[in-house]
């Protein structure tokens, strides 16, 4: 009886598994294959011959721009996710109270998240346009004279892009954390209030520890997502000025679709994948360790 049932279950899962494999595994294997070859769509002589680990060696040892782009991406992820977390938590806490118009504000807050990243890039390029952008105009009216437009200076370009990412994705954090806050049991909070704890103390000693698992999930999801960010930044700056906003994804795009050097580009994409994989492993390792210490398995 059990054998037949598990066979049926397997069969039901088969279509999904096949589709998932086709969408994820097959392109992955294709890229893996390409990364060991010299393949370029633009230059004769790069027909796809096997060259072993040469692409990887060149990438890691002879391409300082690669490392630079990784650094920029890590900086971007660190700052953006942290800001999103802090802001998201604050807004979620606010929305958890019984304030007037709570439902309304919750729906409005979600809007940026629903806009396609490319459209976000376009909207903000118009807003930030040095000649006729509303934001540039407002800045001028406030009496601030900018030497270079925000997206045109190496000092302000990356922060501006970070700001736009925070603008778009804080709602994501807010939603996750709000769901967590709503699901918290009310007894510990009531007990603390009876004992005379202040709001801040309740938040720090009771609420925060209880939603920690959710915070970890939110950080994980956002970090992976922002590591991959491409569309918005590509539209806003194309990687410039100079190398200021050249995220790893943009550099990979450049190699693959501007230089058409797809063997080398596949190697880079694979390394990015490994970085994310290792990052996730580390993340789980540290968060699980915490759980073990607390005696929760």
């Amino acid at each position, binding site marked *: 009886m059990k054998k037949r049932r598990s066979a049926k279950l397997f069969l039901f899962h088969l279509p999904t598994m096949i589709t998932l494999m086709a969408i994820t595994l097959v392109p992955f294997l294709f890229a893996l294959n390409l990364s060991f070859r010299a393949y370029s769509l*633009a230059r004769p002589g790069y027909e796809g011959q096997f060259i072993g680990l040469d692409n990887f060696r060149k990438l890691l040892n002879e391409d300082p721009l690669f490392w630079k782009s990784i650094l920029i991406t890590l900086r971007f992820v660190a700052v953006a996710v942290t800001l999103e977390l802090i802001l998201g938590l604050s807004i979620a806490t606010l929305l958890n109270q019984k304030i007037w118009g709570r439902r309304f504000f919750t729906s409005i807050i979600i809007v940026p998240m629903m806009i396609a990243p490319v459209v976000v890039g376009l909207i903000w390029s118009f807003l930030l346009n040095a000649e006729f952008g509303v934001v540039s105009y407002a800045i001028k009216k406030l009496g601030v004279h900018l030497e*270079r437009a925000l997206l045109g200076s*190496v000092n302000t370009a990356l922060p501006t892009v970070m700001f736009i990412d925070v603008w778009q994705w804080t709602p994501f954090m807010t939603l996750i954390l709000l769901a967590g806050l709503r699901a918290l049991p009310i007894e510990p909070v009531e007990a603390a209030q009876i004992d005379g704890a202040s709001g801040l103390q309740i938040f720090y000693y009771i609420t925060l520890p209880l939603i920690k698992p959710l915070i970890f999930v939110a950080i994980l999801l956002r970090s992976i997502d922002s590591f991959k960010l491409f569309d918005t930044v590509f539209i806003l*700056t*194309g990687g410039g000025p100079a190398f200021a906003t050249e995220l790893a994804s943009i550099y990979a795009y450049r190699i693959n679709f*501007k*230089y058409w050097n797809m063997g080398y580009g596949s190697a880079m994409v694979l390394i990015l994948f490994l970085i994310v994989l290792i990052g996730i492993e580390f993340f789980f390792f540290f968060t699980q360790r915490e759980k073990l210490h607390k005696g929760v398995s």
Partner: protein
Amino acid sequence: MKIVRKKKTISIGLMVLTMIAFLVGCFAPAEAVPPAVTEKTYEGITLRFVAEAVPPTEALIKLLPEFEKASGMKVIVEQYPFDHVVEKTMMDLAGKTRIYDVLSTPYQYLGQFAEMGYIVPIEKFMNDPKLRDLEIDYADYIEGMLKASAEWKGELYGFPSNSCIMFLWYRRDLLEDPVERGTFKENYGYYYSIPPTNWIEYKDVAEFFTRPEQELYGVALQGKRHDALTCEWMNYMWSFGGRVLDEEGKPVINSPENVEALEYFVSLLPFAPPGTTTYTWDEVTTAFQKGRVVMAIQWNDQAFGVEDPAKSEVAGKMNYGPVPVKKQPAAHFGAWTYFIPKLSKHPEAAYLFIQWATSKKVQMELARIGMVPARHSSYLDPEVRKIPFFYPATLAALEISNYRPRIPEWEEMNSKMMLAISQALAGEKTSEETLDWLQKEYLKILGK
């Protein structure tokens, strides 16, 4: 039963109507077009054409019905901004998906496409009596343009499509104003030419007219890390006597002339609007339209936008001249070329299309409504001559026509040049450092 019968009647009726419409369409009267195009052998064919989304393409689309009626073909035009056209074209050619039957591509891809066997030489179509237009007159094409945009290793691969070229834009009203001229003479000790003819004058005038309180700036630079940046800078490069590759094809990008040209370019930054490092050709046009800028090195086909009174505050106040000279005149030629893919589903029909699009009559009509022509005869037309920037500025520039390297490696070289110049503009590296770096990269790419 009744419903089924009704449906049957309707569908039969529709079929008959369609057949009648088709038959009627087949016998439509011919228009006055070059003789070869009235050959009905290519009737019913649909050509898929991909081009850049700019005013000249719009102009071509306006004239398409003429071609479609005469030949019985249908032409579907897909338009995209620069980057996307190239991407889509490459994907189609490399992926062998045979989507596009005829292409309009930036001419620097000529080497790449020819070497990879993506496009076919058009010699055989040109000599085919069935396809050849008797009035085509190949000598009428501006030779420099034809060679630059379509000749590779002795073979011709297409015809020039949009011929844009860079020259000097300036505000005639401001430069000619006697009060301004007088004040300039007091401060600088000489009268500037209108427009400035050398780079010293150019910078002095730029400095003189930079008045941030009035929202006026002497120049605009296409300073975004983008194709526009290298396009503009190469004018300075050529004018200062520099070049990218020497006669043997070896990179000489860090020559003293190039370093000087880059240093000069960077030195213009204080006289440009704060947003200049986010500008491509579009934003420079907008800056002129709003009356914010006095001079710039800019594309000729953009001038349509600044001469349009509906969009521009300075329509009628502009004039155009040659790029200032240091060692030699310069004008960056930036044309597109009509190519026929090797795997095109209808290569002969495609050839008829591009022959029509570059025929004398069509080029003249296109010139009148917004496309820059590739033929001498078009510039002799009195209507065309009235367009302020076509004549003499465009023709003069076309005679110079400096063109960028068209070798397969150029895309990568161009992309790295964008980074190098952007870093110099941002002050991250000196001109010398950044060009030394670029030279090293070029040697790596070209394997020399």
